[in-house]
């Protein structure tokens, strides 16, 4: 689909960032790799401003939680280059004890609510974000509900006990 091949992108990025980029794969043709949080803001700025690549559009920011891993929380960026019609997926894994990552709001204004949503559900702290507070959940919520340790339903609730339904 795109004008730039994934191979070319990989070469260009590994030449610049070397060891900081790992786990490169291409599920369903979408180039995916992991980066570290020390380079992520520089990497995003490079991808956005590079004359050839021009990943000018931030499609999405979200997160994922793998409780069994050492760096359990992953922040996932989807970028899109309108000029070349190529998408790219970047992941940054962070430890639960210190889930901080630089914000992307200085590059894209649209990152504001996406990062607020990610903070709201996963507790990722985006340093430098202008207004990092909960967005969909209530303000006085104390947990980050999309983390795996929180069950779908409150196990303490009593209104759904079997005896109410004659079971």
């Amino acid at each position, binding site marked *: *689909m795109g004008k730039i091949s994934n191979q070319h992108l990989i070469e260009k990025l590994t030449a610049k960032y070397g060891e900081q980029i790992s786990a490169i794969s291409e*599920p*369903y043709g*979408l180039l*995916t790799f992991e980066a570290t949080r020390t380079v992520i*803001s*520089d990497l995003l*700025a490079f991808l956005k401003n590079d004359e050839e690549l021009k990943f*000018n*559009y*931030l*499609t*999405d920011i*979200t997160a*994922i*939680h793998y409780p069994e891993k050492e760096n359990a929380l992953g922040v*996932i960026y*989807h970028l899109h280059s*309108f000029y070349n*019609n190529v*998408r790219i*997926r970047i992941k940054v894994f962070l430890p639960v004890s210190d889930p901080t990552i*630089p*914000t992307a709001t*200085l590059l*894209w*204004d*649209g*990152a*504001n*609510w*996406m990062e607020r*949503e990610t903070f709201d*559900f996963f507790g990722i*702290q985006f*340093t*430098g*974000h*202008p*207004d*990092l*507070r909960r*967005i*969909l*959940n*209530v303000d006085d919520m104390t947990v980050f*509900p*999309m983390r795996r340790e929180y069950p*779908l339903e409150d196990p303490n609730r009593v209104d759904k006990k079997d005896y109410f339904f004659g079971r």
Partner: protein
Amino acid sequence: MSNFITEITPNRPVYTDNDPQGELTTLNLGPTHPATHGVFQNVLQMDGERIVSGVSTIGYIHRAFEKIAEHRPFYQITTLTDRLNYCSSPINNMGWHMTVEKLLDIKTPKRVDYMRVIVMELSRIADHLICNGILGVDTGAFSGFLYLMEEREHIYEIFEEVCGARLTTNIGRIGGFERDFNEITFQKIKKFIKNFPPILKEFEALFNRNRIFIERTSGVGAVSPEVAMGYSWSGPILRATGVDYDVRVNEPYASYEDFDFEIPVGTTGDVYDRFILRNEEMWQSLRIIEQALEKIEKEPKGVFHADVPEFYLPPKEQVYNNMEALIYHFKIVMGEVETPKTEVYHAVEGGNGELGFYLVNDGGRTPYRLHFRRPSFINYQMYAPMSGGMLLSDAIINMSSLNIIAGELDA
């Protein structure tokens, strides 16, 4: 190395006016204001009729769909997608089905693709009809809305014929449709594409060159393409600014590459441009439906799903009477089918923009993580910043033309 700020600078919303002279008024617009067409709250600071600043509060109908989706098998998530953008739920349903098909590497027959295109374009028309009709109501022209609502009713009758439901359709299955289009469906579609153009023409005649409407809408909420892309806008409101980004063309799905249609773009990105653009998109959708009806004629009859027994639920009478169907039914329902351990992002052009599904699968019966890239959520975040300096009545029509759907906003 990095040019990022490294400390959080809290910028909490101002709920009481902070002007020393006490000249500004705080106005609570919403959450249940009739002019906002949904549960949206905006706390505005007003200087007379002009908005100084605003803060959006969202989440009033948050239903934790992403959490629920982690506990549901793939085929049961369709009903969750219904409730995102409920004005065009078939697009959401099929976007989800196509995501799963991409994950499982299922190739759907051409006839299924064309059937999907028909249903998706009909729902795009329904979505745009609502948006443009309501925009007319908000500018004070009620009659256009009434003309259009009758046509939306006819589209819903077609959906009813295809799947039995009207608003939250749950249309189709992974791999195709649950049943073939019957004769009455085709008759109704043909009747619709014959009767709809004159009504849309009349609607355009009422609005497009109407001086009151133009003066009311042109220049309101004008956005430059750079700002719109910076805010990750997508869909009609992005195209109204002049960016020709449409997922149907940039990354064709469901055989959209077989169709001949145009992507209208605007120039100024104001409310008037968005209105004209949505009207033009309805004409293009009609064109696509006409072509799809022609193409379906040439495809083998009676094909309405891909041949994937491991994922496509067999009909009930076969489950009761046929050993093989019973086994597959059991395997699907109990989730004993192997699925690849990988991740997939699939986007469709929804009524409001790029509707993306990011699915991470760990091989189990439910997704490990499912994220909806909801266009309304991302489009809406510019609303409060762009309202600064607007008149209150302009901010109302600006919200109508953004076509924010509360279900999609809050997920």
